[in-house]
C-alpha cells in the first residue's frame, strides 16, 4: 500500500498543483482587469475596515496570480501550497460569516461580487469548493515533490 502511494504520489502532486494553481491563476486573472469591482467585492463582505478591504481588493488578485504561477511551474511548491491553503481558509471564514449574518452577496471569487438577490446566493457550494482546495493546498505542503516541476 505504502509502495503504491509512493509510485502515484508524484502524479497526484502534479494534478494537485495544476488544480490549485489553475484555479488561483484564473481567479486572479479574471479580477485584475477590474480592480474597482474587486475592491467592491471585498467591501461587500462587511468584515474589514473599508481602507483595508480596498487594499485587499487591489492586492489579492495579484497574489493569486503569483501563487498560481508558482504552483503550475512547480517552484516553491510546499510554501505555495501552504499559502494557497491559508488563503482558502480565509475565504471559507469570510463566506461563512457572510452566510451566518444573513448578507446576500456573491463571493466575488472569479470576478463579480457584491450584493445579489437572497435566492441567488451559493454559499454552500462556494464553501465546499474552497474546503476541497484547502485540502489540495495542505496535500501540497506535505507532498511537494511531483512530476514536471522545477523543484527537485
Amino acid at each position, binding site marked *: 500500500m505504502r509502495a503504491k502511494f509512493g509510485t502515484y504520489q508524484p502524479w497526484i502532486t502534479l494534478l494537485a498543483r495544476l488544480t490549485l494553481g489553475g484555479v488561483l491563476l484564473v481567479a486572479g486573472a479574471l479580477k*485584475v482587469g*477590474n*480592480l*474597482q*469591482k474587486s*475592491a*467592491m467585492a471585498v*467591501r*461587500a463582505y*462587511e468584515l474589514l475596515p*473599508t*481602507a483595508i478591504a*480596498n487594499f485587499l481588493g*487591489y*492586492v489579492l*488578485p*495579484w*497574489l493569486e*496570480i*503569483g501563487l498560481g*504561477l*508558482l504552483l503550475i*511551474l512547480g*517552484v*516553491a511548491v510546499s510554501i505555495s501550497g501552504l499559502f494557497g491553503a491559508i488563503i482558502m481558509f480565509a475565504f471559507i471564514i469570510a463566506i461563512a460569516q457572510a452566510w451566518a449574518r444573513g448578507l*446576500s*452577496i456573491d463571493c466575488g471569487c472569479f470576478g463579480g461580487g*457584491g*450584493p445579489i438577490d*437572497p435566492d441567488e446566493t451559493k454559499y454552500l457550494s462556494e464553501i465546499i469548493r474552497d474546503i476541497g482546495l484547502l485540502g489540495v493546498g495542505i496535500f501540497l505542503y506535505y507532498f511537494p515533490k511531483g512530476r514536471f516541476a*522545477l*523543484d*527537485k
Partner: protein
Amino acid sequence: MASSSGDKGTRNLLIAMVVFIVAVGVIFSFISSRSDSTAAIPAAVSESDGYGIVLNPTSTPTIDVYIDYQCPACRVFEIINGGYLNEVIAQKKAKVVYHPMTFIGPESILAANAAACAADEGEFVDMNLALFQNQPQGENSGKWQSEYFVALGKSIGINSNTFEQCVNDGKYVNWTGNVAAASAKADVNGTPTIKINGKALDRNTEYGDLGKFRAALAAGGVK
C-alpha cells in the same frame, strides 16, 4: 552537479520573476486607483461631496445616489423611483448628489462622461433618465459610444457644440476615476446605493417599492 546548480538558478530566477510581476501589478493597481487631482471636473461637481454631481447644493437633507449606468438594478430603481426623486430635485426638497460609478467597464465610463457633459448644460436630470431608458442589453455591448451619446443629447434638446465636444473628447473620463476612488472610500458595495444624510437605505425593501422609498426619504427629512 552542474545541471543541478543550473536548475537551482532557473528556479530562483522564476521565483524572482513571479515576485516581480506581483510587485509591479500591486504598485500599478494602487497608482491607477488613486484620485487624479488634475482631472477636469464638471462645474456641478464638488470634491467634498465625493466628486459627485450636486443638485440643489444649499437644500437639506442630503441624498447620495450611487449608480452605474450599465447596472440593470439601477435601471429598475430609476423606473420605480426616478420620477419621485426628480420631483424632489425640481422642488428643491433635498440636496441630491449623483455618483456615477464605472465598475462595469468602458461604456459605463463613457456614459458617466456624457452625463457630466449634460450637467454642464444644466440638463443632468433629463440625461440621467434618458441613459437609463436607453440602457443596452448586456454589458459593454458596443452600442454606447460617443456618437450615440451626442444623438441621445439631441433627443432631449441638448444641441450645443460644447456638449458634443465634451462627449467626443471624453472630457470627464478621468473624473470618473475620482468618483470611483471616493465611492470606494465611502464604502459603497453595490449599485444602486442610496444614502440619506449618509445612511444607506435598505437594499432589500426600500429600492423596489415607491411607497417604501418615499417613506424612507420622509423619515430622513424630505418633506
